[in-house]
């Protein structure tokens, strides 16, 4: 067997192998994504909880106003 034939065989095996790995890895990636429903449910619940809250969570209150409120 000459060098080109050996290299050709290596490339053939590698190409088929990597395509199979590619399909397998894609399947694994999709499976992993599907296996996160619990997190999604938690996020949805959190989403419902915060849906009625203002977008900016930390409201800015001027110091002077806070002091006045405390004095009252």
């Amino acid at each position, binding site marked *: 067997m000459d060098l080109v034939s050996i290299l*050709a065989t290596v*490339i*053939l095996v590698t190409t088929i192998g990597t395509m199979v790995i*590619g399909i397998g*890895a894609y399947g694994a*990636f999709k499976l992993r994504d599907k296996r996160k429903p619990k997190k999604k449910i938690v996020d949805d619940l959190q989403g419902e909880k915060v849906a009625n*809250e203002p977008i900016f969570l930390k409201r800015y209150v001027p110091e002077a106003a806070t002091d006045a409120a405390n004095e009252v």
Partner: protein
Amino acid sequence: MELKQVSRYVWAITAVVGVVSVMAYLYNHARAMQGSFTVLLENIVLATMSYYLLFFLFLLILRYAILIFYSFMDHLEGLYKGRQKTTAIYQDDSLLPMISLVVPAYNEGVVIQAAIRSLLMLDYPNYEILVIDDGSTDDTYEKAMAVAQEQDKIPVRVITKRNAGKAEALNTGMSVARGEFILNMDGDSKLSSNTLRACVRHFDDPSIGAVAGNVKVINRENIWSKIQALEYVEGLAMARKAQSFMRAVNIIPGPLGMFRKSVLKQVGGYDHDTFAEDCDLTLKMLMRGWHIAYEPTAIAWVETPTGLLNLLKQRYRWTRGILQATNKHSQALWQPRKSGLNFYILWYMLFEGIMWPFSTLLGNIFFAYVGIQYGLSTLLFLWWLQLTVLDVVAAAYCVVIEEEDPALIFYAVTFRLFYINIIDVSKVFATIEEWRGNAMTWGKLDREGKL
């Protein structure tokens, strides 16, 4: 089912009916000739694929030749401009405009402090940092606030809001920014110290609406990240530089893009309807006639996925996002006169996004079949060799231009040997899923804090 989806299925059914009709005609023809239909069909399919792959190879060589040529022209232009005595407006420190750096952060607790501290070291006299905490569930806000409070020279503002995605966070940054220019980046990026000075000088030209920066991989720790490092170097030093010379930069990268605030507002900021909001925004700007410059010396160092599944997740999102953005502006695909350069930009994006991965996969299947069926595996080797030679030549050129580590050239061989085969499979599936309109989620990558 939406009308658009129905029309896609109608097209697909028409194509299948067309192919079946051709096959039926050939079958009758083969019977009339008293030959073997199977052999005839195999010959036709193999011949068609051979011609198609030859055409694809021609396009590929043309693409490499054009990109390398224009990239080199852009390089020469850069060198020439560097030697000229400049009379730029944005040269004197006292005249430099204010720039707002917008850092969207969602669960970036591991990296946010390092990211902000690196921003405080930038060489520029007039800028502010805006950290937009996009409703993180970790300690991103607290950590960002800690750095903001210990800082008194450069204004650092931290704004927290309900989680609504990166696009919304960047829009929030745009609405509260005080600067005339806005630099949008990722929460996990690190910028080179010259970034602001290097980018802002492009705005001397009033036709420039935005500047795209250079992106490099910081975590070169295993073969996946090293190949990605080469991919980034090639993508920017060759493709982006060539696009810059042609005034046709088609993506302002998420990790580093500087905009005129007025232009950002004019195009309505980032939209929420694609998963590649940076590509969509760039296309919106191009459609309005703005030019986009590329600044190779402004560098954003980013962390890339080091595992295969995370890498596929990223590429899957990129592929679908770019297809969504292209589809959104698809009217330019059919109006060459009205769209001008945008017509070519969109077709080029479709070539890279759809035709390239499908064709390389088709080539592999075709040559593997011929190799197994007829013992002609040498053909597959030659197919692989010619693509690898193209990759190695491009890699060597880019490494020299970017003054990168020469060891990266070696990864051009491994890139073609296994990496791109795996990625292309994912891209093809992503394209099919996008065509079918499957639902998808954002899929934020987990950060390891390598900055």
